[in-house]
């Protein structure tokens, strides 16, 4: 830096540094968006946030194979020493057009035991509707131990005008469920 003002070396050094800093800016802009998939991966691994991830759907195939021979092998796997209380919650975000309610409001099940929760969706509007239910589980970590073998929330459901449908969610709780979880809430929001 022997020469001041617009010496060529100075200019070059400035340009080089500006390029690097602009690159850093671009990287951080990308990082902002990368946070989206990172967030999903992080929540998937840790089970934070009470979301039920695709893992469940992938396991569905395997789990469904288990449904048939459940009786013998699986029966032994039921932890009868514990009984977990499950509460079902429903929220309809479709305005007044769709009513959404749980038929089984609370369930008591043992970990490892297959169970069913039934829900009723009523379309009170004059048009046929497609609806999608989005699940959320609290406490969040419990989401890792709830395995659904079938759920109406896996795909969009079609409901004709003025029709009432019942939907079923089949699931079991992992026997690895931590001891301190005695109660869970399953919330479904319908869009």
């Amino acid at each position, binding site marked *: *830096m*022997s020469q*001041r*003002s*617009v010496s060529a070396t*100075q200019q070059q*050094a*400035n340009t080089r*540094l*500006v390029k690097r*800093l*602009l690159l*850093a*800016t*671009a990287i*951080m*802009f990308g*990082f*902002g*968006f990368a*946070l*989206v998939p990172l*967030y999903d991966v992080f929540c998937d691994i*840790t089970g*934070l*946030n*009470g*979301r039920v991830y695709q893992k469940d759907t992938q396991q569905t195939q395997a789990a469904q194979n288990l449904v048939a021979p459940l009786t013998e092998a699986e029966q032994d796997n039921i932890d009868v020493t514990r009984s977990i209380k499950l509460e079902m919650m429903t929220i309809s*975000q479709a305005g007044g057009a769709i009513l959404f309610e749980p038929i089984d409001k609370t369930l008591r099940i043992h970990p490892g035991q297959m169970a069913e929760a039934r829900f009723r969706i009523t379309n009170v509007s004059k048009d046929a509707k497609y609806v*999608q239910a*989005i699940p*959320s589980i*609290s*406490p*969040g*970590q419990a989401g890792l131990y709830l395995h659904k073998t079938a759920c109406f929330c896996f795909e969009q459901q079609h409901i004709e005008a003025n029709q009432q449908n019942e939907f079923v969610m089949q699931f079991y709780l992992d026997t690895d469920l931590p001891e301190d979880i005695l109660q869970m809430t399953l919330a479904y*929001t319908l*869009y």
Partner: protein
Amino acid sequence: MNSVTSTQDTIQHGSDQGHDSHHGPAKGIKRWLYTTNHKDIGSLYLWFAFIMFLVGGAMAMVIRAELFQPGLQIVEPHFFNQMTTVHGLIMVFGAVMPAFTGLANWMIPMMIGAPDMALPRMNNLSFWILPFAFLILLASLFVEGGGPAFGWTFYAPLSTTYSGDSTALFVFSVHIMGISSIMGAINVIVTIWNMRAPGMTWFKLPLFVWTWLITAFLLIAVMPVLAGAVTMVLTDKYFGTSFFDAAGGGDPVMFQHIFWFFGHPEVYIMILPAFGIISTIVPAFSRKKLFGYTSMVYATVSIALLSFLVWAHHMFTTGMPVYAELFFMYCTMLISVPTGVKVFNWVATMWRGAISYEVPMLFSLAFIVLFTFGGFSGLMLAITPVDFQYHDTYFVVAHFHYVLVTGAIFSLIAAAYYWLPKWTGVMYDVGLAKLHFWCSLISVNVLFFPMHFVGLAGMPRRIPDYSIQFADWNQIISLGGFAFGLSQLIFLALVIKACRKQGEPVADKVWDGAEGLEWTVASPAPYHTFTTPPKIQD
């Protein structure tokens, strides 16, 4: 460097310079539109910030007038929400940040012995896009359905599903503010990195320069993330994406994570340069070297790094698992260690110093005490179990106004009182300045201190109405607010007087205890300084 030379016959400061090749400033509006001079751009930033401070302050007056009594008297709740939102946005992005950038423009080249900022034309651009950003933001208040009303934090789905059409204007204005701050930050880094005078080694840099360097890196790290967040809000609202929409597989809580990943470092962007200012002023009026210079630098770096690990302390009530809450709680508390280092260093600098109480020192002392109050209430908020009680109450409002108003704003006022004689060449009206200080000090505490009480008693923030039991304190708070707002007009009058050169001319070294290269140049600082690099003594 070359100044604007659209007119050739305007060598105003020719006698000050003795350099034929350099021109003084052009005359009239062109001087300000085309200027690439760091001092001109610094002045533009400072004036812009001051105007925005008064505009945002006027909005605060609307808020306080509505809250003077329980019930709805003056404004509609929807307009009240717009006021809280735009007040926050203007104060953060329009007042505090541009004011610090203005100080950086004025002072950094003079402190490191450089002739100008490294990228003068980009400097011009980064200032001149800013007024447009705020014109867009303010214009959004007049569109049908009103301006942004979702809080300055624009949480989804408030800003996506439930917001009005002004959201697009809001998003674009935040984009422009972000681009402006990033360009400013790049300029600061390149200037400090490449333009230091020979012999100005890293550990001889004034602390204001150090803190700004670190701030500039923070800006480059997080402003793009904010740009990403607003872009996602834009596409969610208008282009059918579902980043934050649970119906499409997104997650509104993720918005808060992305926002606060920007938001918490942003808090330090607004306070680190303040630490630099206080570390400059306290030694000058204690007539001692700053105690623990090196530890100050390392404390600043560690605050900056820790600021990336604490964002979720804004989100304790979102239902995080206990171990995550503990992690963020402990990391947050850890920040009080380097911050404490700074406070103790300032106190140790004053210890056995020959202290005199000029106006910059008064504001600095008020900063140290009141910022520490804000730090303590921050520590209280960091404690997860009690945060569930404090969350979204006036206690939070009290906390961040103590760190931002009596912290950032007081440091800016102190800086203005410290360097104003160097900028204008005359001593400002000291009587008026002392009046400004005492009025501000008393009213700011009447304004913000009782907010702790109503907050602890459960008064929620961002609500235009409140229960009857909060009425007395709110009246006192509002009176304090009006008084604080009016007190700033004293400052406005004082600055206008000083800019009109009404006052005693000052020596080059305005304060006898002051140190730094900026005091070796003439007062007022000539249009071009350090065209030949200064010799740096040990």
